[in-house]
């Protein structure tokens, strides 16, 4: 038993391939036989992944889901930023550049709207719960953008660690919701063509959310959504502690 565990830990990435393969198989099986294909296999698999992450998080008290259990640390390599970005870029192979150029304006607009709206909505919610200072409101708004913009903005503005933690949680809620919700909301908002996917990436911004959500909806949309989403966090980190903070401070008077 110990020998087996040692081999699996030492070869973590290979064990991760095996686990994910099993999860994919079970998910596609469930998709075909339990929902007769109505609910896409990849969507089932992503939800299964999130459930595993929850179990892992409760079990270890860590922040990396299953990857905090040494036996499953390989999942952290397989699903880490390096291989994720590698796979995202590979989906762009064969994409028609003119399609992206045609939707460029929509992509830029969606980024600006997506960032400002997330900050505004987050700040209003913060205000409703009694956070009346501009720093806390901006930080929570930043969290509503993505869970990276939250702490970056909070640290830059000197927000309390409690507010920074809340902003990270808000960003995680958004990311998980986008992963799970995209296949359900897609038919209602016309998310079935490249242009809509570019708007989607810019409006949502969470790379992991968009990557997971579009994978569960239609893999062909991934490169378009990822193309705009990749600019979101950087722009959010740029606008949050500057323009948006000054706007909120002007409104709240300090």
């Amino acid at each position, binding site marked *: 038993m110990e020998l087996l565990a040692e081999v699996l830990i030492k070869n973590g990435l290979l064990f991760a391939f095996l686990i994910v393969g099993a999860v994919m198989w079970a998910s596609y099986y469930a998709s075909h036989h339990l929902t007769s294909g109505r609910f896409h296999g990849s969507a089932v698999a992503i939800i299964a992944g999130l459930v595993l992450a929850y179990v892992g998080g409760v079990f270890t008290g860590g922040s990396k889901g299953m990857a905090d259990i040494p036996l499953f640390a390989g999942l952290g390599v397989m*699903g880490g930023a390096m291989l994720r970005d590698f796979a995202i870029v*590979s*989906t762009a192979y064969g994409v028609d550049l003119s399609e*992206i150029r045609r939707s460029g304006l929509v992509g830029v607009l969606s980024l600006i709207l997506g960032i400002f709206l997330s900050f505004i909505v987050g700040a209003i919610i913060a205000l409703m719960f009694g956070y009346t200072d501009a720093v806390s409101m901006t930080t929570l708004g930043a969290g509503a953008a993505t869970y990276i913009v939250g702490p970056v903005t909070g640290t830059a503005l000197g927000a309390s660690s409690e507010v920074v933690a809340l902003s990270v949680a*808000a960003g995680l809620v958004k990311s998980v919701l986008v992963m799970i919700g995209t296949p359900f909301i897609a038919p209602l908002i016309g998310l079935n063509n490249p242009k809509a996917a570019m708007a989607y990436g810019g409006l949502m911004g969470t790379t992991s959310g968009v990557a997971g959500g579009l994978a569960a909806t239609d893999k*062909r949309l991934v*490169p378009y959504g990822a193309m705009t989403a990749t600019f979101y966090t950087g722009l959010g980190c740029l606008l949050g502690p500057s323009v948006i903070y000054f706007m909120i401070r002007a409104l709240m008077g300090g």
Partner: protein
Amino acid sequence: MIIYGVAVLAGCLLAGMVVGDALGVLLGVEANVGGVGFAMLLLIVLTDRMRKAGRFPQHSAEGVLFWSAMYIPIVVAMASTQNVVSAVGGGPVALLAGVAATGVCWSLVPVLSRIGGAEEPLPPVSEEEEV
């Protein structure tokens, strides 16, 4: 050779990351700005040119297509390493802020995608083709 495709893909991502990080430094933010996006544009342009020049045969393309096919499994692995516990246990402020921001932005997708004329939906594909 398959490795040529993998190498081109890796080169594009690395170049994109460098550009994204440099842009971040230039703008004074601690984040990569658009690295993956630049990498995708580079891959599209580069492989298109190489293909037209006859220097990107099917074997090379397979090195890229393999990773494209691994995309969903990698995303599943990514999902299994998310901090779902914090997302669920963040309390009402975090929950409401996350849900409201997502909901408002969802509602704007149809508005934005109609700018410059609505587009036709992609043709349906069977699951076998897709996977």
